[in-house]
């Protein structure tokens, strides 16, 4: 009888905890989906990306890229085409990412070579860093808590602190800590970890401006956590909706990819 009474007491608590966990999981996913929408327009679009590298606090050099991004209706993940514009030695190179396919085209060798997401092609940034990505498609999120942290302009922001675990092999990082401002769903900060658990990069999102009908971050400060003397400012701009035919995501289209 004693045990029965205990069960009567414990059962609602267990149910409450279980349901809370479900609610948290749903909420965490909703938060990530919402913050993905802040970063990424829902229709196919073209944008430009300038990467400015800093070494020891000094501006070192620049890369300019044109991105074409289109969401895959089945996977909810973005497919990307990247065209290098600057520096001059890299002009005309391009990259295709379509799910499992990652191809790099060099107009000098005139062949498309399959590459891995970890291959470094653009300064400090892995190719996976600069692509348009829906985090909700590749990571399982959970809420760590609510925290007030300073954003890149040192303004306090009340954020959900999320932990994202890679849910498939397409995820660039094994684990991500992510801070999303409550209410606006603006991404504020991210910390990106290797399989070994080592912190690789810290990212701050800033300069939110109206782009394609929503307020979106137009700068990301990427700090190399392994060598903190290295940092990259990614500046996004020149957003425009653009029809992107499916055939563009064939590797044989890469040689024909012009800024259209």
């Amino acid at each position, binding site marked *: 009888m004693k045990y029965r009474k205990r069960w009567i007491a414990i059962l609602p608590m267990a149910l409450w905890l279980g349901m*809370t966990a479900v*609610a*948290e999981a749903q909420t965490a996913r909703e938060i990530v989906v919402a913050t993905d929408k802040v970063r990424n327009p829902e229709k196919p679009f073209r944008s*430009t990306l300038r990467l400015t590298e*800093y*070494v020891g*606090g*000094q501006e*070192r*050099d*620049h890369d300019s890229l*044109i991105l074409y991004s289109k969401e895959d209706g089945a996977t909810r993940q973005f497919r990307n085409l990247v065209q290098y*514009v*600057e*520096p*001059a*030695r890299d*002009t*005309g190179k391009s990259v295709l990412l*379509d*799910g*499992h396919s990652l191809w790099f085209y060099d*107009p*000098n*060798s*005139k*062949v498309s070579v399959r*590459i*891995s*997401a*970890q*291959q*470094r092609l653009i300064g*400090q940034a892995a190719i996976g860093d600069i692509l348009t990505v829906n985090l909700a498609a590749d990571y399982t999120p959970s809420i760590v*808590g*609510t*925290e*007030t*942290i*300073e954003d*890149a302009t*040192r303004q306090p922001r009340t954020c959900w602190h999320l932990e994202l675990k890679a849910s498939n092999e397409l*995820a660039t990082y094994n684990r991500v800590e992510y801070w999303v401002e409550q209410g606006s769903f603006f991404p504020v*900060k991210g910390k990106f970890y290797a399989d*070994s658990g080592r912190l690789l990069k*810290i990212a*701050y999102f800033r300069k939110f401006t109206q782009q394609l009908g929503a307020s979106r971050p137009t700068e990301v400060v990427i*700090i190399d956590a392994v060598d*903190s003397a290295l*940092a990259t*400012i990614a*500046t996004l701009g020149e957003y425009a909706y653009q029809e992107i*035919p*499916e*055939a563009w995501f*064939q*590797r*044989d289209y890469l040689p*024909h990819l*012009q800024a259209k």
Partner: protein
Amino acid sequence: MKRASPRVAVLALLFAASATARAADPPTEDKDLSLIPPSAETPPAAVTPVAAGAARRIFLEDAFTGSWLENDLLPAPPPPPQPRWEERALLDVRGEWQVDDSLRLIYSGRLNLRAEEGLGFPNHENLTNDLREAYLGWEPVDRLFLDVGRINVKSGVALGFNPTDFFKTRAVVEPLSVDPVVLREDRLGTLMLRAERVWTKGSLTAVYAPAVSSDSPIYTSSDLKSLNPMFDRTNAHDRWLLKGTVDLAAGFSPEFLAYESQGRVRFGANLAQNVGQSVVAYLEWSGGRQGTVSSDALAFGQATGSLPAAAANVLPGLGAVAFRKQIAAGASYTTPLPRITFNLEFLYNEAGFTGSDWDEWFRTGSAAGPNSPIAGALWYVRQYAQDQQDLISRRFAFLRMDWVDAFVPKLEVSGFAETDLSDRSTRLQLGADYYLSDHWTVGGLILLDSGGRHSDFGSLPQAGSVLLKVVRYL
């Protein structure tokens, strides 16, 4: 969901309370802000628009190469002797100009001003122009591309050797590096008509390259033509190529090829697949009717007047035309930290020399005198294989590495090792490029050929070389 919402509210209150409790101490997260470079706090407000469609690359390069040579080689290589130094200044232009919405003009070429030991100065060979590409591209309907002119058509997923790169033969012109990746870049295109269609699930390309010239002897560095497009190297025979890719599964889209030249048909396939985040596995294969490297060299040498018919009596490894295959199988792996990409490949050419062919090559060559035509005939087979961009031996192992930001930012170190598995002789090259700025690059490389004197790489006239270069991108 309705039942969950109050609990979420409770949780939010709890989290808010915990955040308030933490507010007394500055969150440790905010310490990360100090890692943002102060100069990056306020980047320029006005950002110059990215110049769309600027598909041009022009650079000036000056490169000096010094080589050290082997002495008393048996068999002795034929003249001209390997130069001990070379100085080259070059202007490299690759550009694409949009004539109208559907028409574009493509040019790619390299103007070389060069001097080397034994070349003499001034003479017409001090100035050479490599016309790599010049063609007109037309897109009459979306994603149907029709091209005409000199075009570099390249195929293959491997790095060390490309069995499916059918238009590579005779096309490489005086490269500054023997890195197979560089050899792909500095070569002549072929005069051709090309039609390509790209669909949602694949693509198809058809190429016809007409014969507009005839076979010519193998060029050496001392008999290059100054401003001649050298169609004899690329358009001595009618050639056809049909290739296509098809999406068979998510992320799996093999390429299949069929190629015809001089009545011989070759088939090929390229497969590549990502394995996780760091590995790419790939396989390149071609097969078709061909002779051995010796018998094809003999036929070519006789057709161009470079070899007498009697050479058949001394060449090792002669064999009838039969179905023979070539394979490059490998994988790339990118290490987590630091990020270095390695490619390891096994290379196979069924038409190449076996170990016993090499034994016979050295035995025959050692018996011949230094100035014997026999030695010349033996070396001709190796020159032919190099001219055709084929493997001289049957089996090689190839390892390449590329390390961006090696030791210090902006230093890229790359290199390769290629080992002939028949005798374990190895060619090793290590290079470094330092990107001083967006426009200036300095670099160098060192090449070493090692092995016994009766081995593939150990018997080459050049034991090693050093190259220093400076590049200015315009």
